[in-house]
């Protein structure tokens, strides 16, 4: 092997990424043992790679913030445009009402209160007083003189919006979606109460609990609900790709096929392509795609801890806490079945599985189990120890505060 080849083909990077075939790998290693300059280059790339690996989370987080800024810029523009259109429609309605007083649908009295809670209000914009929380879409739309009440039933499996625009006949008002601030007037539930936009403003990259307030039997005060909301919020754990020929301890135990040089034979090896694609989707925050791929990976390798862990996390991130419990528990079952890992406490998945199980339990309102999981996570050593301890303390405080208020709680 010549030095030119190493430079031209970027062999150092391919070597460090485990992308060379065995013969090329041997040849490359012999060369760097003989050539000090090439060895230095490999050392440089190796050290750089190591540093990047350690900062991966930080770099990815920074890029997400940048992405988020870009996104919000356009959301702001769109919202501003909508407000202007809305004000124009109101003005138009007033002009028309002054001309034809007897033929229009008058604006309800509550329109005034609705207008007072518009974004132009002097009150500061917080999570609790966002305009979307108090705007009455129906009253807002009825200012348009051609809008009439829809006579179709507003209940049933596919209820109408209650409005009919421009006097259309035979067409369900359902198709006339009115979108304000990103929320529409569509009923997302079946025969249920019209869904509302969550009052909480979740930070970028976080997913709020699915229904912390409606499903938690132990929740008493609003403050408690907010604290549980915060405790149940899930931050996606980082995933760092570390090469297909990775051979660190825990990966070795997951994919023996990769280490023995016989890929594609063990169930884990069959699951790897799905897993890699899933993790690509996961890194891109396409959690639904990641879930689908992880489910396929889990079929091929039902005991793979990494597959089950990320499947549980993805379901949590999709606000499916109940579905996330089984795969996360499978991680712990497999870890406990591995006596060696248990004895040495070397499984990197156990702590994380306990931690995210706790999140799932918080989201479904099972605070006793959540506390038990957080306790387990806090006692294990790992990067989540401090966070688990902190959240455990907060959860215990919530439970202690709520106990006297709910003596009949199913989870004392």
């Amino acid at each position, binding site marked *: 092997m010549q030095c030119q080849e190493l*430079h031209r083909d970027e062999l150092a990077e391919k070597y460090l990424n485990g992308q060379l075939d065995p013969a090329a790998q041997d040849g490359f290693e012999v060369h760097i043992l*003989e050539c000090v300059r090439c060895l230095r280059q490999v050392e*440089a790339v*190796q050290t750089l790679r190591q540093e990047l690996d350690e900062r991966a989370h930080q770099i990815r987080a920074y890029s997400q913030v940048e992405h988020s800024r870009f996104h919000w810029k356009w959301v702001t523009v769109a919202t501003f445009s909508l407000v202007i259109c809305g004000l124009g429609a109101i003005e138009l309605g007033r002009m028309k009402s002054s001309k034809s007083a007897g033929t229009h649908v008058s604006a309800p009295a509550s329109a005034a209160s609705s207008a007072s809670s518009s974004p132009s209000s002097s009150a500061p914009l917080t999570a609790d007083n966002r305009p979307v929380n108090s705007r009455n879409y129906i009253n807002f739309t009825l200012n348009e003189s051609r809008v009439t009440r829809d006579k179709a039933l507003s209940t049933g499996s596919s209820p109408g919006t209650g409005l009919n625009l421009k006097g259309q006949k035979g067409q369900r008002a359902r198709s006339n979606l009115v979108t304000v601030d990103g929320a529409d007037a569509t009923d997302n539930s079946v025969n249920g109460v019209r869904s509302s936009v969550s009052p909480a403003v979740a930070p970028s990259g976080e997913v709020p609990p699915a229904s912390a307030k409606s499903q938690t039997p132990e929740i008493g005060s609003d403050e408690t609900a907010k604290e549980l909301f915060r405790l149940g919020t899930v931050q996606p754990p980082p995933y760092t*790709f*570390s090469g297909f020929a990775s051979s*660190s301890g825990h990966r070795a135990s997951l994919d023996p096929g990769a280490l023995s040089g016989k890929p594609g034979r063990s169930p884990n090896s069959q699951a790897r392509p799905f897993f890699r694609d899933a993790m690509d989707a996961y890194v891109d925050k396409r959690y639904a795609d990641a879930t689908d791929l992880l489910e396929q990976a889990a079929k091929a390798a039902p005991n793979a801890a990494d597959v089950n862990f990320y499947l549980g996390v993805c379901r949590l991130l999709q606000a499916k806490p109940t579905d996330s419990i089984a795969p996360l528990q499978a991680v712990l079952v497999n870890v406990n079945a591995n006596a060696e890992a248990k004895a040495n406490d070397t499984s990197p998945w156990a702590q994380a599985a306990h931690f995210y199980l706790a999140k799932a339990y918080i989201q479904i309102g099972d605070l006793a189990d959540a506390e038990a999981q957080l306790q387990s996570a806090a006692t294990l050593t790992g990067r989540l120890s401090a966070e688990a301890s902190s959240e455990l303390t907060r959860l215990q405080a919530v439970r202690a505060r709520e106990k006297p208020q709910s003596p009949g709680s199913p989870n004392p």
Partner: protein
Amino acid sequence: MQEEPPVAAATMSEANAAAVVLAQRILAGDRSAEDELVSTYHRGVFVIAMARTRDRDAALDLTQEILIAILKALRSGQLRESAKLAAFIQGAARNLINNYLRTKAHHAEVELDDEAYSADPVEELESLERRRLVQRELESFSITDRQILLLSLVDGHSLAEVAQRLNLSHEAVRARKSRAVRKITKKFARMSQT
């Protein structure tokens, strides 16, 4: 990475000739030759162990084991063609690392009676200094450069994939990555010379 001039064939044959002499001196029982072998190949063996295990602690242990095993083999005359010393060392390193990966035996039972090799504190300091250098350089890079390096060097994406993800042209990604890596490599080379 393309700025460094390629090593001339003459330099390589000189290195081979030096390796032949070194192997013969070790066979003859020259202890200073053993020190020389360790200092010459220690870093290379560590890089190989690190690349194959991706575990710094394991790589440090394995480097010792590999060098000890090689010294024992050279003392007992197991090297048939002394001109192929590098290939011999690479083969020994590969086998021991593969054994480690199979059995996860962190402490092999290879021992050298009285002069067991221990980690060189100077080498450790140099390693720390190299890491600090890379940290400083990384801080000076733009976030886009850091993302390019992360996606290509750590995540293993091709330049085309990186370009697509970051909404940059392929050429821009290639140039930025090449410039960043070259900058660090040059600093590394300068540090090694001083």
